[in-house]
C-alpha cells in the first residue's frame, strides 16, 4: 500500500500529473452544472419581470 503512494520515490511527479488531471476534470464538471442551474434561475427571473411589466 505504501509502495502505491510513494511510486518508487517519484510520487511528486506521478501524483502531480494525475492530481492536476483530476482537479481540472472535476472542476470543469462542477462549473458546467453550476452554469446550467444558474441559467434556469436567470431565465425564470426574466420571465417574472416580464409578467410584472404586463400587469402594470
Amino acid at each position: 500500500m505504501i509502495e502505491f503512494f510513494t511510486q518508487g520515490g517519484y510520487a511528486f511527479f506521478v501524483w502531480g500529473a494525475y492530481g492536476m488531471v483530476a482537479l481540472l476534470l472535476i472542476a470543469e464538471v462542477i462549473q458546467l452544472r453550476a452554469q446550467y442551474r444558474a441559467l434556469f434561475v436567470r431565465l425564470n427571473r426574466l420571465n417574472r419581470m416580464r409578467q410584472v411589466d404586463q400587469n402594470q
Partner: protein
Amino acid sequence: MTLNWFKFASPPAFYSLAGRLIPLFWGLTLILLVVGLYWGFFQTTDQLGGGNPQKEYYRIIFIHVSSAWMSMWLYFVMVAWAAIGLVFNTRLSFMMAKAIAPTGALFTFLALWTGAFWGRPSWGTYWDWDPRLTSELVLFFMYIGYMALHSAIDDIRRADRASALLAIVGLVMVPVIFWSINCPDPNQCAALHQRSNLTKIDGNILFAMLTMSLAFWMYSFATTFMRLRSLILTREAESVWVQELLIHRGEQ
C-alpha cells in the same frame, strides 16, 4: 424505421437528444476510467525492476498521451463543425464548435502539464523549446484565441463566423504537432521528445493507454453536450419551446 438525421440539426431536438445521451457518456467514462487506471497501475508492474529501464513515472503515459490525442482530435472536430457552420449556415454547428473549445483547451493544458511532470524526472527539465512541446503550446494559444475572439464580438452571428475562420486557419498546427517528432536529422532540429511507435509498445501499456484515451473521449462528449445545452438555452431563450420548457420545469 426511418430515422431523419436532419431532425437533430434543430436546437430543440438536439437539446433533448443531448440530455438523454449525457448520462450514457458519463457511464462509459466511469467504466473506462476504472478499467484504464486499474490496468495502468496494476497490470503493467512487470515494466519495473529486472533488466527493465522503466521507473514509476512511466505511469504518466496513460494520461499524457490520451490528453495530447484529445487536444488534437478536439481541435479537428471543432474546425469541422466551424466549417460546416460557415458552409451551410447552420446555427447548431457553430454552437457545437464553441462548446468544444474549452474542453479542448483543457486537454491541451493537461498534455503540457503531464508532459512537464514526466519531462522533469526523465529528461531533467520541465520545459524545453522542442518542436513537439512548442507546437502543442501554440495549439493551446489557438484555443484561447478562438474563445477570446468569440467573446470579444458582441454580435453572436459575427462572432461565430469570425472565430470559425480563425479556428480553420489554426488547423495548420495539428499536422505540425503530429509530425514534429519525426525529425529526420537530429543535428538539424533538436527534438527532445520521443518518437512514437505504437507497434513497439508493451501490450498491457497500450491497452491501458487506449482505454484512458477512450475515457477522455467519452468525457469530452459529456462535457461538450452539457455546455451545448446551456448554450442552446441562452441563445434560444426568447423562443416558444424554451418558454414552455421553463414552465414545465417550474411545475416539477
